[in-house]
């Protein structure tokens, strides 16, 4: 449906320069070092060069909340938080991460996060969360997941919906595949050469688009046609250019020439045949034959070839780094081109190499990312001027996603939802309930975080004044506080439940005074206190 008329006059470039510096294995730290060790090595090196001293390590209460939000998608329960804080086991951090990484909550949370990432901000893009739940549970390698989402073979969990659900807009499909899997937003090149990235030409765009040109839907299945005319586009100077299958690195994929005397006729006949099969499908259940030469399979192959696969590996490394550190090694995460250098080039190279040599094991990468000293730094900077964000000297505040925020507010409001007495099945059922409630209540008005996100006043208005929302906030927590003896108990329980830590003395005084002033309406006093805790900045962020 999109017209690609564009009249800016620029010359077409022919060279490609995406991959950046090639991996110089000799200069990188040895492959057998651990991920956290390597992260800290490179970050420390750069901090030293910059003459900066990093922030101290975060305290236990902060860290257990951070790990729970990052790996479980919600704040810890009071019991979980206290158990961690009180434990003297030197291995407790690694043990917690390990427990979470093998939990169903991790799978569900990761599926949500990946689903958001894969939708690339396109509100019409399909969800592949059902597939992600299965694939992430099995910890399928990322390259395999890419293959599956490109529709390598049909599957009841429908990874191919990634492509199928976008077939109505192949331009969006092209853009989003390039951006999500390879970190390169090529939308500018649809109409003209990229203004900053000389190597991004219209050829790059239409060459990538060509990989999807034969794809079509048949009875809910993703198929490809055997025949088709070569991809063409009208360049800015009006000339019609033909372009073959061209990967972002400039690698061309040779296509077998159609072995038919009359191509237009073959195309027409194939279309006719497909129409007939479509018509008779209810009876015959016959599918059109598979194309002998699958274009999408070729994309997967060329992208994962040793000489090209860095794009693929670096993109997921950078996106996961962004998720756990709040700022990418390359910013923006969809601008990973040669003109936009990473803050820590060797680190990115090492992590990409490590991911490739460990069969694209995502769980291994995540485990490593959350095990570094840098991950565990405090988010508070007490010095005068904070170091540059890309030094990672201090942890970033990361706004919670709608799901993290929703499940956490609901859990804090109803602390008995998840208890240790529950069987794993009960726990899972409760988690799922929590998820769907969070989606229902928060999915629409809490925005998905993005770079430079601005929290809109609409959010504050809704949380401040919406009657149904106010009823929900602290729904079960407040009656429980009412039953507790003593103001101190009430305040301590409330702060532990909502903020996963003990109240400071100053806070205890402040909250106590607030409740005191409302002795004629104790329940309302507690309700308002819980509201203030649930709405304060500390709760809104993963800090």
């Amino acid at each position: 449906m999109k017209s690609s008329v564009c009249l800016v006059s620029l010359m077409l470039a022919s060279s490609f320069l995406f991959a950046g510096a090639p991996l110089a294995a000799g200069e990188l730290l040895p492959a057998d070092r651990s991920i956290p060790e390597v992260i800290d090595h490179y970050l420390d090196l750069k901090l030293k060069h910059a003459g900066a001293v990093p922030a101290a390590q975060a305290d236990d209460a902060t860290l257990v909340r951070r790990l729970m939000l990052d790996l479980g998608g919600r704040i810890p329960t009071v019991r979980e938080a206290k158990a961690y804080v009180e434990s003297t086991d030197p291995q407790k951090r690694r043990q917690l991460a390990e427990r979470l990484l093998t939990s169903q909550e991790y799978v569900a949370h990761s599926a949500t996060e990946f689903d958001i990432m894969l939708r690339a901000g396109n509100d019409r893009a399909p969800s592949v969360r059902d597939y992600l739940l299965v694939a992430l549970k099995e910890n399928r390698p990322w390259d395999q997941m890419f293959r599956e989402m490109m529709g390598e073979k049909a599957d009841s969990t429908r990874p191919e919906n990634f492509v199928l659900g976008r077939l109505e807009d192949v331009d969006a499909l092209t853009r989003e595949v390039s951006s999500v899997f390879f970190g390169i937003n090529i939308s500018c090149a649809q109409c003209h050469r990229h203004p900053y990235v000389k190597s991004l030409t219209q050829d790059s765009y239409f060459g990538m688009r060509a990989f999807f040109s034969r794809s079509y839907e048949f009875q809910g299945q993703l198929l490809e046609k055997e025949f088709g005319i070569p991809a063409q586009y009208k360049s800015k100077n009006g000339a019609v250019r033909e372009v073959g299958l061209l990967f972002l690195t400039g690698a061309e994929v040779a296509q077998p020439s159609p072995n038919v005397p009359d191509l237009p006729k073959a195309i027409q006949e194939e279309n006719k045949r497909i129409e007939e099969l479509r018509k008779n499908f209810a009876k015959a259940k016959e599918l059109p034959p598979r194309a002998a030469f699958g274009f999408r399979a070729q994309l997967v192959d060329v992208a994962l070839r040793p000489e090209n696969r860095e794009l693929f590996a670096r993109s997921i490394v950078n996106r996961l780094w962004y998720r756990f550190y709040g700022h990418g090694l390359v910013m923006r995460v969809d601008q990973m081109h040669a003109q936009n250098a990473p803050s820590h080039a060797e680190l990115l190279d090492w992590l990409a190499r490590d991911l490739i040599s460990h069969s694209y094991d995502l769980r291994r990468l995540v485990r490593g990312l959350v095990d570094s000293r840098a991950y565990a730094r405090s988010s508070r900077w007490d010095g005068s001027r904070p170091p540059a964000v890309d030094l990672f000297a201090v942890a970033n505040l990361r706004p919670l996603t709608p799901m993290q925020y929703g499940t956490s507010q609901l859990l804090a409001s109803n602390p008995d939802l998840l208890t240790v007495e529950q069987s794993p099945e009960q726990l899972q059922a409760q988690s799922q309930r929590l998820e769907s409630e969070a989606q229902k209540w928060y999915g629409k008005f809490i925005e998905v975080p993005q770079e430079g996100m601005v929290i809109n006043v609409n959010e504050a208005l809704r949380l401040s004044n919406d009657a149904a929302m106010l009823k929900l906030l602290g729904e079960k927590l407040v009656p429980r506080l009412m039953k507790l003896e003593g103001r101190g108990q009430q305040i301590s329980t409330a702060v532990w439940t909502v903020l996963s830590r003990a109240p400071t003395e100053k806070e205890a005084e402040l909250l106590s005074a607030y409740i005191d002033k409302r002795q004629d309406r104790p329940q309302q006093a507690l309700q308002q206190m819980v509201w203030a805790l649930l709405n304060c900045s500390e709760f809104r962020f993963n800090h």
Partner: protein
Amino acid sequence: MPRTARHQGCGSPEHAISRRAFLGSASGLLLGGSGGLNMLGSPLLAEQMKRDQKRALLIFLSGGASQFETWDPKPGRHTGGPFQTIQTSIPGCHICELLPEIATRVHRHTAIIRSVDAANTDHDAGARVVLRGARLGNDGVKYPTLGAMLARELMQADSRVPDHVALYTAEVGLTINAQPDAAGFLGSRYDPINILSRLAPEGTRLPEALTDLDHQERGQLRDLLSKEFLKGRERDGTAASHSAAYSRVRGLMSCETLFDISQEPDRVRARYGPTLFGQQALVARRLLEAGVPFVRLNRGWWDSHGENFDIHAEMVPELDHVMSVLLDDLEERGLLQNTLVMTFSEMGRTPDINTMRGRDHFPRLSATLTGCGIRPGVVYGKTNENGTDIAEGRVTVPQLFATIFKALGIDHQKEYTANDGRPIALTNAGARPVKEVLA
């Protein structure tokens, strides 16, 4: 201490009344009254403010309205579609027959530009182009939207009303509509209050469970808890925006009546008509009247890939009527001379009519500018016979922006300091206003 008003009026002593003095004397006004300037105690003050403060309204036709079926018809051409044209009140100027009401008014305050070049055919990218002056932000600068810049330039420092409100007919929060990060490096004060498919922001009313005092103190408690946490942590705009959002809650609650059109006489409401767009236009008028410097009124979704003519037959008459009533109403209230009303889309629609009787995305479009600073009755720029390209007077988006700024008395070359310390002018270097449409 009284200060001089930002925008001087006629300069006579009785008009040299500061806005702060005005707000001081009328501070209860926004809480209880029927809103707007009618309720001001002193007609002199109201008049003063009307004259002094410039305002802007963007009627944004999102999805891409067809220039053929509105301002730039091509009757009798194969690209022209089925509609006829009508003579307007500007001699020699014909527009589509779907705009009969506006056709009788264009000579009064309006300039039509038929040669805007958006150089883009994608909704989201196009919206970045036409709303951020063709600055895509690939250089790391968080460019503000036109609305945020106008809000910044036209706001009153001690204003009690919002600086930037965006009303949209749809409830889908597409980026093109809701414009996350609209203010960019200007900071969240200039971000819009987004109102999707309603007339007022949600949650502007005091909840029944709380007294007003408890509501206020609950908010203060939240602020105190947050302040302690944010010490040493407020390093980026997101954390600041969270505090800013809560700090605006009470102010907005006090402005609630501004959004309440039931306070308008039946006659006025009837005039704007019963559609959501008409009602939102009335809200927009109330906001402008009360001194909101920038309002964006989004009517969508015009994306007529199929049934272009049926869609425009339905939507253009509504635009015609609502825009006409709005201009009349602003004029009658003495506001139009200080209010610039703009209409445009993120792109135009193709000359070719596709197999769905639709028109697809096209980088050329028409725009209108009405009111403040505009030379009335001007038709600027031309497309060729079939509307396939601009023939005369190409206006780039930065030029359009420069023209808008100039019309409102704002120096379009003025520089801001961006988030990374760079000086950034309001419009791209070299963009000159189109002087032919300026008064």
